[in-house]
């Protein structure tokens, strides 16, 4: 289980969004910290195989990110996502179960299981447009987990969650990180402080610091503020 990012660059006409990044991820939770516009989303889209890097390689256990084999073990929560207006929460999960290759019976079992995990069982039959921001976000998280991913990419997953939901989410991610590669971007340090095994800090498309982070290393918040002093 190894996700290898090798010198990837994404260049737009007049701007380098991601600049020759290299790192390797194994089992566990990795927090990707950086202010808005640091290139986090661009990086994550490339890791998910939906945005082509200008140069460089991303491979997972030897498979390229453009292969079906990789998408089969991938879960992704984008920063922002929509839904077809006629969908209920349950329809939404059933739809993605089908796209991820589960047959009807398996899809039904997995959908109900996940609705329970994210606490949406009671409102599963209601249209998504009646959901609160936090409920919609929880639905997005459930969607990312359908295929029991080995690689889970979460772009600002805690956006819109209230404090109680945040705690629940953190516990869930910590659990999943035991058997999966989890990459989680955020600009809120407390989201990852106690659950991340590793931290990557990004600024203007570059990694400015990366390494393991444990309780003994002191306050991540202080360190982050020091590194990003001029921006915060």
């Amino acid at each position, binding site marked *: 289980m190894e996700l290898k990012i090798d010198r990837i660059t994404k260049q737009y006409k007049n701007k380098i969004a991601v600049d020759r990044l290299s790192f390797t991820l194994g089992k566990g939770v990795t927090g990707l910290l950086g202010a808005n516009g640091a290139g986090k989303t661009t990086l994550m889209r490339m890791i998910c*195989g*939906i*945005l082509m890097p200008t140069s460089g390689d991303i491979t997972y256990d030897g498979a390229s990110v453009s292969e*079906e084999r990789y998408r089969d073990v*991938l879960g992704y929560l984008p920063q922002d996502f929509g839904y*077809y207006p006629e969908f209920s929460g349950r329809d939404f999960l059933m739809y993605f179960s089908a796209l991820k290759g589960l047959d009807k019976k398996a899809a039904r079992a997995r959908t109900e299981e996940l609705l329970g995990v994210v606490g949406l069982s009671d409102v599963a039959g209601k249209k998504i447009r009646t959901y609160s921001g936090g409920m919609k976000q929880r639905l997005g998280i459930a969607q990312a987990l359908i295929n029991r991913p080995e690689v889970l990419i979460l772009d600002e997953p805690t956006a819109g969650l209230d404090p109680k939901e945040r705690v629940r989410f953190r516990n869930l991610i910590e659990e999943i990180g035991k058997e999966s590669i989890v990459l989680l971007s955020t600009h809120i340090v407390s989201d990852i402080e106690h659950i991340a095994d590793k931290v990557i800090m990004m600024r203007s498309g570059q990694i400015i610091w990366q390494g393991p982070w444990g309780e003994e290393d002191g306050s991540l918040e202080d360190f982050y503020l020091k590194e990003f002093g001029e921006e915060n």
Partner: protein
Amino acid sequence: MSKDIRKMMADASPKPDMVGKDAFIRAYRKKTERTELSVFDIIKSQFSYIKLPVWLVSIAALIVAIFGINLNRETVFVVAAIMPFVSAIAVFDSMRSRMYGMEELEGVTRISGRGILLARFICIGAVHIVLLLVLSIVVGSSSGYGYAMTGAIITLPYLISSIASMIIERTEIGRENAFGCILVSVMTSVMILAIKDEKALFAAKYRWIWLEMLAVFVALECIQIKKTFRLEEYQWN
């Protein structure tokens, strides 16, 4: 009572540890036979999600054709005027992922964004080819133009509006709403109704022009479909 017991017991039953279950099911799936998704699987996954209006317009065209059998020449043009809507709605529905912000989520599934588009095109396309053939035969039998010419008159507006809709839907503004597709359909439809009384255009000696135009537009359609797919490959470049 049975239902109560069922619910009560289901709620009371213990749940297995999530992480252990995840890891095991993953490993189990890898060991059991894995097959690549076939085109058939992909099509099956999308078929039930095609919106009702797509089929309703097709049925409407068919009903008009059947009831208009005795009305000779007029029927051809009424049916031809409906066809732009048939194709525009189909293109719009197939490409709605973007409009509703689903493209990223769909793009990372096994099937992929391209697969989904392909499945939708195949589902709708297959039905439409049959529809066009049936319409050509039903209407052609009494139109006085013969089957080939009738087919051309009906199919051309279909192709024109579908080509234009695909071009519009590929643009940033076009995917924001359905307005572009509707406009294209209305314009094509009006155009057909406007020329229907120019009998000279449909005279026997010019029929080869119609058939040649049909061939050209079929080619253009193919080019547009290809372009639409290419867009789907690396969407955010």
